């Protein structure tokens, strides 16, 4: 298990600083972290191949593109560290966004609408947790059911069509002071929250214990069922945040938004070094995983690679990243 963790923002700062003439500590950090080195290699490669890549504007773009996946993935990190899986986060994100749009157009004050949208996401996560902890459903099955239910509810509430968001909400998708995108800020804040939860809180430490050995955790007096409720509810909450950020960027809540994002989120967590067997994983790793996916998509777009080939490349990179990490750990 990881013992020290860097808040996401510091990690992100390290790789941009390390591209020329790496001092020894940079080398050590890179060697210790396969995903981070992959990200650095990719950024350097893209910067060489495309003149447009390494501009502040484009890098912030990458950040915006990574934000929704990263926020979803932070929630999924809790679940995966505790040895579970959550397939429903994409649908829950859409459902929360639709809830927000619907409430806002019904005249509910913005602040209250946001709170209720977050509550909707938490409710979905809570139901996941109940099914898993008390209904004894395997997480895969319970969250697969929720994937369908939440998506269906999003379609029911919206009657299948997008809901325009008022300006009082869609600023969340815009920039602060002309250049700093709000989604990037939200991503960094949520990332720091994730790191702090995992490292410093009771629930966070318990996630590692449950994922590492559920029976040992139970025999050590940890109320495993209750904690699983907390874990899946947190994942639902983070999914709601991601859904709101996504809808704000598009200035409209769409019932089909974030389809398939749960797989990107899981990929980001796994690329970041977490084990699907549980007990291992870090917030910084997840951030790096999400950035790798975003850098790839952005870079391949700039290089005019067809969208079809992009999928092939991204799949290959997911396999390669995890393969390298496995090899590094074995030696």
């Amino acid at each position, binding site marked *: 298990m990881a*013992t020290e963790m860097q808040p996401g923002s510091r990690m992100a700062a390290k790789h941009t600083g390390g591209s020329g003439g790496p001092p020894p500590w940079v080398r050590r950090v890179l060697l210790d972290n396969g995903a981070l080195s992959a990200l650095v290699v990719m950024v350097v490669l893209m910067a060489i191949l495309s003149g447009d890549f390494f501009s502040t504007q484009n890098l912030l773009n990458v950040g915006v593109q990574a934000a929704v996946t990263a926020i979803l993935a932070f929630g999924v990190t809790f679940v995966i560290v505790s040895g579970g899986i959550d397939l429903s986060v994409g649908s829950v994100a859409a459902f929360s966004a639709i809830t927000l749009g619907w409430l806002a157009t019904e005249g509910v004050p913005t602040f209250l609408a946001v709170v209720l949208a977050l509550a909707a996401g938490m409710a979905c996560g809570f139901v996941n947790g109940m099914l898993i902890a008390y209904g004894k459903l395997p997480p895969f099955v319970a969250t697969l059911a929720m994937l369908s239910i939440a998506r269906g509810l999003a379609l029911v509430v919206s009657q299948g069509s997008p809901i325009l968001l008022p300006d009082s909400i869609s600023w969340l998708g815009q920039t602060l002071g002309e250049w700093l995108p709000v989604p990037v800020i939200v991503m960094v804040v949520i990332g720091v929250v994730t790191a702090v939860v995992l490292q410093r809180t009771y629930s966070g430490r318990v996630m*590692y214990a449950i994922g590492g050995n559920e029976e040992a955790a139970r025999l050590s007096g940890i109320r495993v069922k209750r904690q699983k409720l907390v874990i899946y509810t947190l994942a639902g909450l983070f999914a709601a945040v991601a859904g709101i950020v996504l809808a704000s960027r598009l200035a409209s809540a769409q019932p089909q938004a974030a389809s398939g994002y749960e797989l990107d989120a899981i990929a980001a967590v796994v690329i970041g070094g977490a*084990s699907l067997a549980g007990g291992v994983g870090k917030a910084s790793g997840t951030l790096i995983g999400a950035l790798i996916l975003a850098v790839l998509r952005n870079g391949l777009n700039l290089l005019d690679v067809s969208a079809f080939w992009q999928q092939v490349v991204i799949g290959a990179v997911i396999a390669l990243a995890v393969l390298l990490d496995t090899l590094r750990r074995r030696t």
Partner: protein
Amino acid sequence: MLRTEQIGKVFPGVVALDGVDFDLCQGEVHVLLGENGAGKSTLIKVLSGVHQPDSGRVLHRGSPVRIGGAEDAERLGIATIHQEFNLVPELSIAENIFLGRQPRRFGFVDRKRMERDAAPLLQRVGVQAGPETPVRELGIAGRQMVEIAKALSLDAKVLIMDEPTAVLTASEVDRLFAIVRRLRNEGVGIVFITHHLEEIPALGDRVTVLRDGRSVGQVPASTHHDELVRLMVGRSIEQQYPRQTSGDASRGKPLLRVAGLSRGGVFHDVGFEVHAGEVVGVAGLVGAGRTEVARAVFGVDRYEAGTVEVDGRRLPGFDVTAAMAAGLGLVPEDRKGQGLLPEGSVADNLGLVTLRNASRGGWVDRSGQRAAAGEMANRLAVRMAGLDQQARTLSGGNQQKVVIGKWLLAETRVLILDEPTRGVDVGAKVEIYQLVNELTAQGHAVLMISSDLPEVLGMSDRVLVMSQGRIAGELSAEDATQDAVMALAVGTSAPGQGTTTEDFPHGH
């Protein structure tokens, strides 16, 4: 037949083997002895191709060989029976024996031929069950025999057995010994690892003692126990069981009182008391219900009738947290499966029980937790590279110290130890016994379940004997002899023959 010369192996932070010489002749049982962490496991992993030595060489019939993997070992006729069996429980005995090499006919598995081929092998190892029986229906001893049959089917000339007797009952051990002797007479060379010194003269020919990655001596199997222990730990252990019996005078008030505890088909009307400052041993055959009672008392499993009181207050059933709050603690028998976070660090493992108390409003006092873990690791003399070392990379004895340590940090008043020294070396055993003494001297109480009779007798102030889910009797330390305990454990009212108690894997 097989010889190693100056084998060295270094893992990050640890020199596991440091120039080990070892040899095995045809038709001999060579016992490998050493404390946990002495390098036994690493040595047999080198011989079975799991690890590559960093220095030195392995000779097979006089010529140097490289054992790069399981295939190479198989080609050389080296078979290893690990403590954790490599069997697929849902498949039949025959399929397990021929796994990956099933005889085929027209591309399909030839089930008939497979079962026909398996039958004589099973006969050789004394397994009664038919070759079509699923392995999950076998007990631990049966599974072990299937592993041996598998080795025989590969025409193994060298058989490496890693602590095969640790999980067996006395009668099963006798059967295993009979088979091992027969194999020896057939010319198989056997490397036998054990922690039970009394097994050595009964079975072995030669003994190699490892300590701290070096071979410190090669002696005949008839060597006296004390000498073997001295070689293993590098000092003589004055007292193997350092129990300072408190006697009735210093016996305190009852801390744990169990009455009428029952669960249909598992245990019936179990009642006992454990007083402050006392060690109560629980003896009995495997499957007598000891582990089940311990788990029920601690609130892990449900019970249907009866009461559990700690210090006069009745506990709700099936509530581990309440049991812990009352001051109970349980060190489970299955260390890896139920006690340890293998991926977690030593610090994480030690802090597991105290995690809740070290949290204020959901925030964990990490530096306090770490400091406490550091102190406890010191007090327990856990041999580790540091508090951040992953628990799975510790040796068995040190893992057990960590699992016990997390309860000591929680100021547990009644500690239930289930097989606390299984798979633990002599040196660490004594350290664990001393911990038990410290606990009782501080007025805490210990309930110790153990299948190791000398241990129960040596360490307990009173001995409870369980048989077939009931308390068959209670013996004071003076009255508790091996014979008295066994007589109660075997039980005269047992259905069928008392001595052939059916064994089954227990606890979970």
